């Protein structure tokens, strides 16, 4: 039987009309009916962006719809989530990565968002690997020696971070506070400057995520300590802050959230898909290459954790005298 052009047209128009008429409440049964946009509030190509792209690909398979990454960098990673909280519908089709600055910045500047009210937290996924490096020919062989030197010589040790108010800066000052050390932060513009600063002898140490990795492997820099909950796979001989007596785990963890007021059923669909996504080998391999670690929390735990993070951020900001004047 021949299908005439007219029949095909009819079919097409009929299909379109059906699509247009069908009522579209955010019915969880149909979710997701179109691609989900995941905002990455960091520039393309950075470690966060790369890991999110790998996760998006791994998750799409389980969600049945593509997860599309949209980069909206700015405001130390807060412009993306804040724009989403202000403008996106809570229908589950617009989500954002929630960096730790979302909890910290409202205590430092007048922010448009309230991390406790404006988001629906979905799933917590990942943490970074941070560490402190010194030049290979530096006199300090261990983290303990380094701390002892810093304590004995107040103000002598200068350390580079990828920016003031970053987790690196705040944790280093927390350590100083605990150990009674006075040292000087030299805030660099991102990771690209911190490694040359310590290599060129401009500062005594650098605290940053693993941009220093290749130089450590090449024997030009010495890694004194890492900040994760456990030792890293890549440098298993290097102790953590936790076991060195500082009791701090600092990995600037992040997860994903949507705008406030999302349907719990939609949240569950998203959570389950991402949950399967973070177990995909593709994603795990990418994380390992980027020296990031899986850090899973389900919806309820993440929502509770968000409260903790906000309280912690407030205390840190006040400790460092960075709090906004109100």
């Amino acid at each position, binding site marked *: 039987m021949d299908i005439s052009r007219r029949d095909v047209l009819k079919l097409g128009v009929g299909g379109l009309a059906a699509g247009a008429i069908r009522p579209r409440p955010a019915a969880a049964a149909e979710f997701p009916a179109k691609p989900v946009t995941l905002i990455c509030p960091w*520039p393309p*190509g950075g470690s966060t962006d*790369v890991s999110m792209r790998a996760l998006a690909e791994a998750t799409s398979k389980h969600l049945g719809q593509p997860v599309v990454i949209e980069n909206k960098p700015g*405001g130390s990673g*807060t412009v993306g989530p804040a724009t989403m909280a202000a403008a996106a519908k809570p229908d589950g089709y617009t989500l954002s990565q929630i960096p730790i600055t979302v909890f910290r910045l409202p205590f430092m500047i007048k922010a448009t968002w309230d991390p406790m009210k404006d988001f629906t937290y979905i799933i917590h996924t990942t943490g970074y690997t941070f560490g402190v490096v010194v030049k290979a020919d530096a006199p300090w062989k261990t983290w303990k020696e380094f701390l002892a030197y810093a304590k004995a010589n107040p103000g002598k040790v200068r350390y580079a971070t990828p920016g*003031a108010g970053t987790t690196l800066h705040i944790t280093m000052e927390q350590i100083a506070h605990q150990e009674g050390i006075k040292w000087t932060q030299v805030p660099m513009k991102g990771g690209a400057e911190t490694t040359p600063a310590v290599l*060129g002898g401009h500062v005594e140490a650098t605290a940053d995520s693993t941009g220093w990795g*290749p130089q450590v492997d090449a024997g030009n820099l010495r890694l004194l300590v890492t900040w994760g909950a456990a030792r890293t796979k890549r440098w298993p001989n290097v102790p953590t802050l936790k076991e060195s007596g500082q009791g701090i785990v600092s990995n600037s963890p992040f997860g994903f959230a949507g705008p406030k007021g999302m349907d719990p059923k939609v949240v569950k669909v998203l959570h389950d898909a991402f949950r399967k996504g973070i177990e995909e080998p593709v994603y795990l391999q990418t994380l390992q290459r*980027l020296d990031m670690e899986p850090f899973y929390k389900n919806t309820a735990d993440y929502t509770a954790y968000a409260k903790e993070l906000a309280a912690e951020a407030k205390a840190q900001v006040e400790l460092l005298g960075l709090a906004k004047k109100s």
Partner: protein
Amino acid sequence: MELLQQIGTGFAVALQPTNLFYCFVGVFIGTLIGVLPGIGPVGAMSLLFPVTFKATPEAAIIMLAGIYYGAMYGGSTTSILVNIPGEAASVVTCLDGYQMARKGRAGPALGMSAFGSFLGGTASIVGLMLLAPPLSQFAIKFGPAEYFSLMVLGLSILIYLAHGSMAKALITAAFGIVLGLIGLDSINARPRLTFDRLELVDGVGLVPIVMGLFGVAEVLLNVEQALKREVFQTRIRGLLPSARDWVESRWPIVRGSVLGFFLGILPGGGAVISSFLSYALEKRLSKHPERFGHGAIEGVAGPETANNAATGGAFIPLMTLGVPPNVIMALLLGAFMVHGVQPGPLMMKQNPGLFWGVIASMYIGNLMLLVLNLPLIGMWVQVLRVPYRILFPLILLFCLVGVYTVGNTVFDIYVMILFGLVGYLMKKLEYEPAPLVLAFVLGPLLENNLRKAMILSQGSFAIFLTRPISAVCLLVALFLLVSPLVPRLGRKREELAVEEVS
């Protein structure tokens, strides 16, 4: 000859048919996005980044790198034809390139910028092959004090050579520095001039400002003039540079290559700064500085060579230190990582095929670009024949789309329109926009390095004079700024900076 053997390995990789294909795709896309104003290499590379997940690491990096240096080729096209820089690094090309086009010499301007780009690009690849390891060691000697003094010197050269009144140039530069202050202070993260607006927390973007000052302002100015129907009525003379053009451009190309290569190694806006400095240098050395700003081919050849030479230089810190000197290199770093390669001191040993293959592909890519671009000149020149009532709305449309795609925010569009008006007023009142752009780029770097240096020296200014590189830069800058006060030297500057007649 170990080096020859390594280069041989590189070409063996780069000449594989798949890699040749990816190289061509990369430079082709690069040329396209370079021509379209606003849509820069960063946008295009991030869009195509996921596509490369499935390719081999060699193919992926070869293609992404091709987009980068291809964009530097294409960026000059719109500068010359319609006075809109396709890239920030092509801002200075507007000054003389556009004047050449108005005199019917768009062909030679485009041709010389293609040849200059080819020669500069090739020279910097040779530099990359021979000098990568020692130069990376030199680059880490540059601490905050050295950077600060280098920036001071750069700004001083620019102001010294600005058209017309030095007071006006200083005012414009000061305005640029203030604009650069907007956002979170880079040392202790306090908001400045943000007026509690979230959009301003990260500062104002370079692209909207440049597109506004040059693109939108140019359209506004021409709408006035178009009524007189006199622009571009001149016959288009010749499509390729003449023998005389070559003689005039020869040394600017050599100097641009060297300047661009070395500045490309340093973090920050290597390509942007080197193009500005090359222009200033050529004007300073020229026997006829009065021709600059009126269609001097040296003013196109030098900067276009320099910004392409900077692309080769920029690879050095990435491939030898694992440190990306700019956003594009950061993107490439991401691409390397996805493919399980760590750029850094060990890369040359661990992945020689990739390291030398990428370098060799850049050599091939540059050749492809020359072949691709020369025949296009004839076509581009025809753009000038498009009636203004069609061309201008198109230009505005490209500016709007371009600015939006960079940051995905409507706010950037408002910024661009505002700076369109600012640029229009500046032209009317005879203020040059170029010092504003450079000050905007250098200002934040200047402040950041000044403050870092002060933290390092525990508050002592002596750090700038006790370090030799820094001291030399500052002395030269001082000489340039004081010279107008000395009558005999002041006259020399006036010869160099003849009042712009518009």
